[in-house]
């Protein structure tokens, strides 16, 4: 095969994708036999995985940190909620809803795609001016997106219910729905990073000036990554909403932002493997910490870790990773067969700015 489009099937470039999909499916398969509580935790972990992969599509490929992706999750969650909630529930929680929204009862999948599309549209409109900014200014701008969406969603009472929760969403996200979307997110992220636009963006991440000198129009590739990233994040928000059955604006602010960024940083934000590894490892760790906070009962005594220890440890772990292993668990590489020849990689070590 020699056409460009099939290049990813040559030379084992597709191997990481296959392994990552296998890992997700294996995790979901194992959860199938676990108790309900653990199964729910793993489902939530898979939803987080979609969110981390969504963040990775922009952050990993562009090298610009984004604080805004949780805003896209919120947009996805609210749009899907408004389109899929039963009309009766909307009558209770949102009496002032415009008539055309009050009557719609879309099926789950259509609502999910609409949620992702709405997030992508917002990213396109906001990103068009903001993606021209240089690294740190762009990060600040994404932070502005987060705050604006938080304030608007939290106070636009007639449409979002403001500070109150929206309840009565159809709960259709279970283990395999989450696993299916996780696989889809991984495929999208992989195809993007192997695409022409993704590779050019990665080139500009390594050396902006050299890439520009080679004719790479960084801004448009950044914008493309930002829009795809927002779509995947929007889907993650939709999944979270229809997993919990409620939407609250408080869910989508700094704590979730921190969790998703921590997962990406700890896993390693320079490769898709890192994003997936971070989501899985941190999900398992937080689950262990949760058990530790509940404690073990020995006779009459309960030995438990203090509440909130998990959060503090997560922040500490993130800090230690930045200090001692800046490329995270994955070290900036994609996963490969454990015993086979190493997969070719486009990675290089990041250079310190001059």
């Amino acid at each position, binding site marked *: 095969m020699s056409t460009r489009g099939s290049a990813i099937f040559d030379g084992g470039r597709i191997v990481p994708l296959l392994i990552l999909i296998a890992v997700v499916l294996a995790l979901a398969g194992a959860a199938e036999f676990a108790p309900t509580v653990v199964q729910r935790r793993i489902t939530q972990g898979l939803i987080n995985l979609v969110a981390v992969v969504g963040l990775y599509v922009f952050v990993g490929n562009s090298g610009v940190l984004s604080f805004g992706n949780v805003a896209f999750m919120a947009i996805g969650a609210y749009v899907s909620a408004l389109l899929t909630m039963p009309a009766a529930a909307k009558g209770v929680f949102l009496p002032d809803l415009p008539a055309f929204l009050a009557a719609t009862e879309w099926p789950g999948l259509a609502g999910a795609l609409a949620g992702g599309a709405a997030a992508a549209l917002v990213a396109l409109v906001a990103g068009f001016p*903001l993606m021209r*900014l240089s690294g740190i*200014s762009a990060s600040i701008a994404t932070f502005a997106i987060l705050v604006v969406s938080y304030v608007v969603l939290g*106070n636009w009472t007639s449409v979002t219910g403001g500070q109150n929760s929206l309840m009565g969403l159809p709960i259709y996200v279970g283990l395999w729905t989450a696993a299916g979307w996780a696989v889809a997110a991984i495929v999208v992220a992989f195809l993007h990073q192997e695409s022409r636009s993704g590779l050019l963006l990665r080139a500009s991440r390594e050396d902006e000036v050299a890439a520009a000198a080679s004719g790479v129009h960084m801004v448009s590739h950044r914008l493309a990554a930002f829009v795809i990233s927002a779509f995947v994040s929007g889907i993650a928000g939709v999944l979270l909403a229809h997993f919990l059955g409620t939407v609250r604006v408080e869910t989508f602010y700094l704590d979730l932002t921190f969790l998703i960024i921590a997962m990406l*940083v700890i896993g390693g934000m320079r490769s898709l493997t890192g994003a997936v590894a971070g989501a899985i490892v941190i999900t398992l760790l937080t689950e262990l910490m949760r058990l530790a906070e509940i404690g073990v009962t020995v006779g009459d005594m309960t030995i438990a870790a203090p509440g909130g220890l998990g959060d503090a440890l997560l*922040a500490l772990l993130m800090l230690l990773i930045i200090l001692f292993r800046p490329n995270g668990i994955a070290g900036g590489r994609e996963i490969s067969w454990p015993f086979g020849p190493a997969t070719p990689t486009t990675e290089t070590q990041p250079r310190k700015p001059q």
Partner: protein
Amino acid sequence: MMGQAIQVLVDAVSVGGLYALTALGIGLIFGVMRLINFAHAQLIMIAGYAVLLFFAQSAALAVLGAVVGAVLLALLIERTAFRPLRGADPATLLIASFAVSFFIEKTMIMLVGSRPKGVDFLSALARQVEIAGVRLQLLQLVTILVSVVLLVATTWFLKSTRLGLEMRAAAENFRMAEVLGIRANRVIATAFAISGLLAAAVACLFVAQTGLVQPRMGLQLVIIAFVGTVIGGLGSLPGAAFGGFLVGVATILLQALLPPELRVFREAFLFLAVAVVLVVRPQGLIPARGLKERI
């Protein structure tokens, strides 16, 4: 009507002063390290808890405790987290400061719980005084006074002392300053100490105003003040102070002038302004010198 206008004005200036001090603390660190210090919120928080610890003994002890606590924490995070990362790219520094900020906040929540605690600190200042027919809160006047004194003192330090000169040189071109024999560790540690001091002042004024201490108390202040740092011009110290002041005044004026149904969206307007400033005038209102990225 006139009295009301003056009240709003005093309100605006005192809030503006508070934000100016906060923005200056953030701007100092950005100036010397190109680091956006999210953990500034935790410096304010720790100073607040120092006030909680000592306010029963005496107000002076509480203020002293706040200063010592915030300065020590600032020096500690500089030494342990940010010094090893000096010279790392801005995105790494940004993530690091985000992690430090969350680590301190979550540790505090683990240790003392997340519920707010009441503090009866300087409550005598909260009473109203009447000056020339206008009812004002004494605390607001004190806030204005403290802000002015600290801004003048910081300016004096930066303009007239050797260390201040070194700090401005480092802010303008860190590498050149190092080549010319400025000791980076000392300059950066001093910047952190001053930012701790400013955080302590903000914490004392803020606690006196709200009467509450809680693990997330600095967050809102820092997020808004950060807007000021960007609008004023990242890396420019007069810009930070002026931007912070402007944002403080703007929040109060928006509160007073916006129709009630739009008031709740106040912060959204502020952050829209940030995005607009970044796109239209990325160097801010008072641009910093020497910030242009070199190749």
